[in-house]
Each structure stands twice: as C-alpha cells, then as structure tokens.
C-alpha cells in the first residue's frame, strides 16, 4: 500500500480494440475473396502473396530501423500485411517476381515511410504500388489467366496443366514449358477496351467467354465475396457504410447515363460494379482511413469522387481500369474535402427558423 499509485489520466479501463485487431479483421474479410481468386485463377496468387508479404516486411523492417522507430509494435501491427494483400489482389497471378518487389518498395518505402509511417500516408500504399506497376510494367498487367471455368473454351491447353512448378518458372524465370500466350487471357476490362478499339460493339465483345453473367467470369464472384467481406467489416464497425455506399451508388449513377446514351460503347452499370477493382476499392481501398476523409459528409464526397473518376477513366481513358488513379486523385483532395466539411458540433448547429 505504500508505493505511490499510478496517476496516469483517464480513461482508466483498457480500450476495446487495437490497431492490430483492426488490421486482422481487414485481412479476415479478404479471405473469402482470396479463396475465390484461388479457385478461379489458380495458385499463382499464393506465390504472389508470399513474394509481396515477405518483401513488404523486409522493407518495413528496413525503414523502421532507418527511421529509428521501435520495431516490435510497428512490425506486429499487420498494416504491411494488409497493404501487400490488397496489392496482390490487384495484380496478375502470373506477374513476374519483380512486380511484387517493386510494388512493395513503392508502397512501403515511398508511400508509407517517406510520408511518416503508419497513419501519416497521404496516398493509399497499395494503390501507389499498383499505379506504379501499371505505368512501369503495363505488359505484365495485361497477362492474366483465364478463369478456371474456361479451360477448354479459351485455350487449347488446359489451364490446370499450369502446375505450381510451371507457375514458379513463369514468375521467377519469365518462361514456362508451354508458351505464355497459350495460357493467358485478357482481363474483362482490357478485353472490352481492345475490343472497342478494334471497332467491335460492346455486345459483341462480351460474347467472349471470359465474361460471366454480370461481370467477368470469376471476377463477379470475387466481387461478391469482397462485398460480403466488406459487410463483415461494417458489422464489426471497422468501416462505416458511407464510403462503400457512396462508391457503389455513384458508380451506378454515373455509368447509367452513358449506358443509356450508347450501350454499344459504354458498359452497363452492373458491368462497372462487378468488374475490375471497384468492389475492392469500395470496401477496402477507399475506406483506408489514413488517406481518406474523416467526417461523414466528407466520406460520401470522397467515395462519390472515386466512383465518378473511375467511370470516366474506364469510359474515356487509355487504361482499362481507373480505380487506382481515381483513389490516388481523391487521396490528394481528401484534406481539402475535410476542411470544407467540418461538421457543426453540438450547440453550434445553424438555426433553422
């Protein structure tokens, strides 16, 4: 009884959650979509995961040492894992090994630590990495595998013949025993873009068997699982409904007029929602708190901005998908949006008379 009591300030009971748990929940929410990816596009994603995660942690450790930050709390906060995981879900499962390494260098070293580390990044690290890869290695991003349902229809060679060893060769050596062109297919969005450039109409393009019922075959199910993972995050109160709702609703709202105007050239709203990265962005990327807006009004503006820019880039831009650029552009605007949407606190509401 004689030792002086601890006089640290309130609250005196421990908090309900910590950063690590938040990140862990994000990872758990990504598991179903990752399984779907694994099912449709084969085990390539596992190799990419291994590559990205290990290089992310190597860079993380190096940056922390170099910045003289405490290693243990920051290495164990799982934020690097989330970054690596999100990045891997964006890249091609057969991308060469240096894609993941270069991507993680830009994500962890440039986007995260050069801006001050955890919580201080202005740009979403995974999207910075993805944008760099899109610009630096466009070739590797256009090489995707056909979804597993199409093994006979698309390529003469069964996709499942691409076993783990061959995948390793493909990723680390750039060559496989079978010619690459024989086993790859374009992503649905890329297929649409090239198809349109070759003056096919949209309805002709989506007759390609890589398209499914409402998005790309396989892709639409990954999107569904991402949606379910996102709902779990909302239920766990890790994210709020504002950004996902704003992104999805605005995607539909912004793409509908184009589609109605000319459905030969412009994709349908459901095609927009279930293709490419929009579902991932809605629940996992645009909801990144450090690089997004904080007030509820700001979040809705932020989400809407991401959606509008994505639709515009997809419809008129030179890249098949625009999610990464849309997110980065909105990241830039986030502080301004925040400044303009300071909520009126209790007792300072404008009087309505």
């Amino acid at each position: 009884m004689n030792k002086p009591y601890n006089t640290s300030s309130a609250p005196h009971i421990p908090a309900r959650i910590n950063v690590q748990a938040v990140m862990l929940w994000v990872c758990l929410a990504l598991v179903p979509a990752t399984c779907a990816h694994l099912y449709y596009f084969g085990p390539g994603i596992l190799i990419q995961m291994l590559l990205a995660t290990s290089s992310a942690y190597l860079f993380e450790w190096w940056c922390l040492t170099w910045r003289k930050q405490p290693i243990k709390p920051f290495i164990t906060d799982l934020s690097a894992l989330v970054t690596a995981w999100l990045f891997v879900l964006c890249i091609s499962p057969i991308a060469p090994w240096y894609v993941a390494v270069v991507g993680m260098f830009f994500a962890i070293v440039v986007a995260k630590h050069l801006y001050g580390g955890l919580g201080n990044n202005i740009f979403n690290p995974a999207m910075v990495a993805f944008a760099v890869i899109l610009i630096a290695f466009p070739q590797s991003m256009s090489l995707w595998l056909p979804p597993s349902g199409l093994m006979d229809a698309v390529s003469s060679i069964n996709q499942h013949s691409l076993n783990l060893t061959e995948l390793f060769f493909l990723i680390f050596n750039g060559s496989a025993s079978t010619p690459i062109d024989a086993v790859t297919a374009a992503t649905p969005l890329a297929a649409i873009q090239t198809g349109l450039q070759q003056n096919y109409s949209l309805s002709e393009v989506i007759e390609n068997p890589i398209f499914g019922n409402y998005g790309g075959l396989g892709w639409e199910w990954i999107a569904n699982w991402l949606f379910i993972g996102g709902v779990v995050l909302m239920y766990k109160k890790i994210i709020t409904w504002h950004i996902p709702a704003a992104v999805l609703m605005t995607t539909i709202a912004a793409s509908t007029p184009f589609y109605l105007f000319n459905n030969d050239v412009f994709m349908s709203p459901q095609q927009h929602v279930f293709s490419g990265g929009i579902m991932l962005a809605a629940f996992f990327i645009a909801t990144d708190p450090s690089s997004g807006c904080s007030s509820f009004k700001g979040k809705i503006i932020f989400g809407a901005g991401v959606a509008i820019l994505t639709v515009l880039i997809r419809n008129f831009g030179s890249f098949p998908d625009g999610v990464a650029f849309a997110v980065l552009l909105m990241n830039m605007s986030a502080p301004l949006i925040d400044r303009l949407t300071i909520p009126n606190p209790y007792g300072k509401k404008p009087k309505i008379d």
Partner: protein
Amino acid sequence: MVNETLSHFHGGLVLRHHKKASCEQPSKPAGLPDYLVIALKTNRGICPVPTISVGESVLKGQVIAKPEHPMGCYSHAPTSGIVTALDHNPTASQDAISALCVTIQPDGKDQWVEPADQKKPNTREQIVEQIKQAGIIGLGGAGFPTHAKYLQVPDNNTALSRETTLIINGAECEPYISCDERLMLDHPHEIIKGTEWLLKAADANKAIIAIEDNIGGVKKRLSAEIKKQKIPNISVVKVPTIYPTGGEKQLIKVLTGQEVTSGQTPYSLGIIMQNVATAKAVYDAIELQQPLINRVVTVTGESIAEPQNYLALIGTPFSHLLKLAQCKDDVDKLIIGGPMMGYAMPSADIGIDKTTNCLLALPEVCTKPEIESMPCIRCGDCVKVCPQELLPQQLLWYIDGNEQTNDLEKAREHHVFDCIECGACSWVCPSHINLVDFYRFAKSELTYLDIKKAKSELAKQRHDDRLARLDFIKAERQAKRRSKTSKLADKSSAKAEISAVLARIKKQSEEKADE
C-alpha cells in the same frame, strides 16, 4: 418543452456497468475517521476565506470558511473537534492539485452547533439564500455552486410566463458509480421534497427526474413517493443507458431534442439541471437546517473486497473508506470519479470533497493497456462516438501533429472548446492515444495565449495612447509658439506684446518693493 418521445445524442458508448456489486446494500455510515481534511477551494478555483484558526475548537455544522466571491461557497465543520492545521494539501481534484485545507481532529462527541433558528423560506430569494448558506454545490461532479444557477432566474419570471423546466439528473452514466442510484432507493422522500423546493427556487413549471433505464426499482419508488406527496408536476423519465447520457448537454438533448448553444447555459433554453444528490442536500438544508457536511460515496473496484456505498463526512480521508470496504493491497490506481473521466490520485491520505462521488480502486490487471500508444491511423472511431460531434482525430492532428500541422488556432476552429472531456474517443482509439489529454492541453494553452494576447494588446494600446498624448502635447506647444511668433511678426501687435511684458515686470518689481 420536453418531448413525449425521447431524442438521442450523437455517438456515445455502451459500457459494462460494474454497478451491481456496490449497489446491493443500502448505504452505510462511514463513521468518524481519525482526522478530516476539508479542501476549501471549489472545483471552479475560488477559495473562500477561513473563519477559524489553528487550535480553535469547532462544532458540527459551524461555518469554517466564508466566500467573498459571488461564485464561492461556504464550508462547514463536518463534526465537532479541534482545528489542527490550516495549510496546503493535495485535494480530491484533477492532478490532486494542492490547495488550502482545514484539518480537523474529531473529538468524538459529534456535537451540533446551536441552530440559527431559520424559518422555512417563503420567497425565491430566501430559498436561494438558504441554499447558499448551506454551502451546496452541484454534487454530480462539476461542483457548480447551486445558488448561482438560480441567480439567472429573473424576478419577474412569472410575469414573463416563461416556461422553465427543472431536470433532476439521476443518470449516472459512468461505470462503477452507484451513489445516486443508492440515494434514490434510500431517500426518495428527501429527493422529491428537495425537488419541490428547487421548483420554487427556479420558478419552474415542472421537474423531470431522469434515470437510466438499466436501474431497476428506482422509478417505482420515486413515482410512489411523488404520488404520496401529490406533486403532479414532477415526473420520472427513463433514458437509454448510453455513456455519457448523464452529461448535462447530452441529457438535455435526450429529453428535449434541443441543444444548448455553445457558450450558453441551459437556462437559455429555460432549463436548470441539478443532480439528485443536490436535491437531497437542498432538503437537508431547508427542512432539517443542516448544511452540506456529508455525501454518499461509492467505494468499489476490483481491488475492493466489499464494494459498498458509504455516507461519509466531507473531508474523510480515502484511506478510512478503503479500510472500511476492505481494500486489498494490489491497488494500481486509486481513482476519484468513474473510470472514464475520473482522476487517479497519488495517495490515499487525501480527504473527499463535496463532489467526490466514487472511490475506484483498480488493480493492474484492470488498468494496464495491452500495448503502448501507436500513431493515429485516422480510423474515425472517435468521430463515431463523440457525443459533441467533433472530429477528434483532426484535433489531434493540429495539436500533436508534426511541425507543419501543429496549429492550435486550427484546433480552435475545429471547436476544441466544445469538448466535454468525456473520454469516449480515448476509450475507443485502437491506437490507444489519450486524446482527451491533448484537448485539455490545447484548451489551457489557448486560454493562456488568449490572456497573454489580451495583455499585450492592452500594453500596446497604452503605448499607442501615450505616443498620441505626447504628440498632442508637442503639437499644442508648437501651435502656441507658432501663434506667438506670428503675433510678433506684426509690428503693432509686437509693440503691444512688449509693453505688456514690460508692464508685468514693472508690476512684479513693485510687488517685491512692497514686501
């Protein structure tokens, strides 16, 4: 004024209550401790002037300090005994700040002072005066002098026919604390009577006793008492148990749907709010003519073997209460108040004051965070729970960001002064940042800077005034000289001037000669 349906405030938390253990038994008297340390200073920093000296013997209920300031409050001896010290000691307030205290050694007789034979008050002024004489301050925690709330009520209130509502706050939203709940169960009669007096003092039409919906039996008991006393304008309303629903602003929002405009008192909406314990103290003061010398204190926490509410004399040292409740010796934190807003005390030798509603002793397993604080990841959990609808993480960015972002004025723009320091943001923060600490710092720093700025502006004003004054004198002198020279320029006037001077000299020399 009060809606039939309840409103709700933004955010808030659902916390584990931990109240049951301490609330099962009626409150017990804590008895006479070996010594009493009575802090004279109130929470608002105003210190009354002691009217006793060291060595003097005092009787129970005798005035030991008188206020000079209108916001000050009287202090009374809680028991009879000898004043053994009048010096600065740590007090039961934030940071256990040191203040003037009277130490009394009880003589064990507990002998009351001769009652002043006050009549029951008839007018509003008399009620308010008796409340003031009894040294009553808000017993909910903020310690605002009770009489001062009624000074806002205009004399012609009835003539203005302005609707006034008295809210009796029985919503103890902080976990662990159960003293008000126990008080409502043990003394419904006194609370209702006290409320009736307060109704008169406020010139109010009706009173609402607000209680949380998780406390069983209280509403029944209070309602039965209201029926028995036939006071139809007092009602009991249950409000949802969401922390911090017991906060003045939050409770007003819940009950009325209205918000108290920033910087104004609830009376701007025609509302006066008092704690239930204050109502009981008013009853004691008016009906029993006893000043405020004791209060119910919850002694609880995981380190306490027998959690219990005690009726303790003001000034009873914590150690006395801890011993009664069989405190174990694994205490890591000894907290006055609740776990969300309470203050951790450095020692158990401090005496309770009028606002000490709870003594919470927690062992290390309950207090230790599992990780140290991490950087803000801007997750926005704090925004979701803030009952004042602030942006806590933006505030942190401006108060504890880097050199480029630090800007306390921006924190002011983001309404840091509207923070009620409820601690909801700190509690939900996944990075375990003690946000409220930063806001307290920003508020005091901004206040300090404002005072400094006002001072320097005043000094600058004085300096400018002085320069202007000097300039004026100089200009005046120059004007005089100029008029003189211009007069001399003219020959006839120069002659007249010279002759006038000569005449003056002559007159002077004549006067000298006369002497």
